[in-house]
């Protein structure tokens, strides 16, 4: 059913494409949100991904790989969107980088901690992490999605995990420091 729609859309059938786009839009938006960690930019990136998918769909060789191809288009749209509004995004990052209240009152503390650490990664690093751990891509597919050599994908993931670990450790140190201050006060 889907392959039929993809084939029709490749031949310029806008109705077929709108069905495909409607079915994919939330999934792509989620992917963009996880990569960009910004609601407005994610919406722009999702929109760009859908338009670009329409324009480039005739070049898709294997209709069975439509979803993976669409993910790749979205990853590239995220990168473009991020670059186009980098200055604005930096200001936003400064706002969101304010010390956030850690949620110790619930079982979500661990999640909150990871969330804050992920925000500290660069978009390039976070993209590799999302492709690997959210989409479950093996490194070869990550490399393919980003159009980089496998070795580069491996090292980018390695550095991303290192950066994540460092961010988690820094958070843990600052929380420990705050707790000590409270006790002595």
């Amino acid at each position: 059913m889907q392959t039929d729609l993809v084939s029709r859309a490749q031949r310029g059938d806008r109705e077929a494409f709108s069905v495909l786009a409607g079915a994919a839009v939330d999934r792509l938006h989620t992917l963009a949100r996880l990569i960009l960690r910004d609601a407005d930019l994610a919406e722009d990136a999702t929109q760009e991904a859908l338009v670009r998918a329409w324009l480039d769909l005739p070049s898709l060789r294997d209709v069975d790989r439509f979803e993976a191809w669409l993910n790749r288009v979205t990853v590239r749209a995220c990168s473009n969107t991020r670059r186009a509004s980098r200055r604005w995004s930096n200001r936003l990052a400064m706002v969101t980088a304010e010390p956030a209240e850690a949620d110790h009152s619930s079982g979500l503390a661990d999640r909150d901690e990871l969330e804050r650490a992920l925000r500290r990664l660069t978009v390039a690093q976070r993209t590799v992490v999302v492709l690997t751990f959210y989409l479950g891509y093996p490194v070869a597919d990550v490399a393919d999605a980003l159009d980089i050599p496998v070795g580069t994908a491996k090292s980018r993931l390695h550095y991303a995990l290192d950066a994540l670990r460092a961010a988690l450790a820094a958070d843990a140190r600052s929380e420990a420091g705050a707790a000590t201050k409270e006790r002595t006060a």
Partner: protein
Amino acid sequence: MTANGDLERRLSDFYSREPLMRAPDWVLESALSTIESRRQRRGLLAPWRFARMTTSMKLAVAAVAVVAVGAVAITQLAPPPSVPGTPTVAPTNTAPITAPPSTPEPTPSQTGYVPPPLSGLFISEMHGIHISYPAGWIVRAATEPWTTDGEPAFTSLAGDVIYDPDLGDGLFLTLASQPLGDMSFEEWSTAVLDDACSDVGPTVVDGAAGVDCGPGTEVLVSRDGRGYLIMLRTSQDVQLVGFDATDWFSGVLATVQLAPEDAVE
């Protein structure tokens, strides 16, 4: 249990609990409205035509192509049939006077994307760059200064964009420049590239030193306190058969003249 394995498990667990985030309605509506007026790009190989072929069909097509190419080659290369009784002329190392010193006629297997010759000259008044570009390509000169540290996109008004009219944003050159201000070239180039280059190396354009981002289709250089960005963007989803972007871009770069004194401040 390793620290690596622990973090990886945490990440897998974190993302597995991530809910699907509903996109606002306007995202889909706006995208569909945009494509109403946009025609799809057809790659030069039109790969969609082959997408549903079976392996045996593809092999059959390939065999026919090989036979066709062979037939053309035999027709072109075989000597004319000799007339009985006349002596056959032995081949010599001297080319016939009438034979043009040109490349052989292209066969189907050799055809590919070849940009037109670099016979156009564009002088960027906004950015202070002179550059040759392919005949027939469309120039959209910048109308705004480049003030952000992100690369100007295809649709940006801050970059001079020169593009193949048939491919649109599938193949285009972007030129932009801005004063370095208080930054060193290294700081500026790091901010512009934003960690997105896999293999940054040194380069020189019109005698100005700078860096080459990755596969050789994006360079940043500086002259007299002004940073220049020159890049060629290709779409990996558009089939540009036989087109060596890096090689072609280096030819374009060889025509560049940087004129920071002419740029708009």
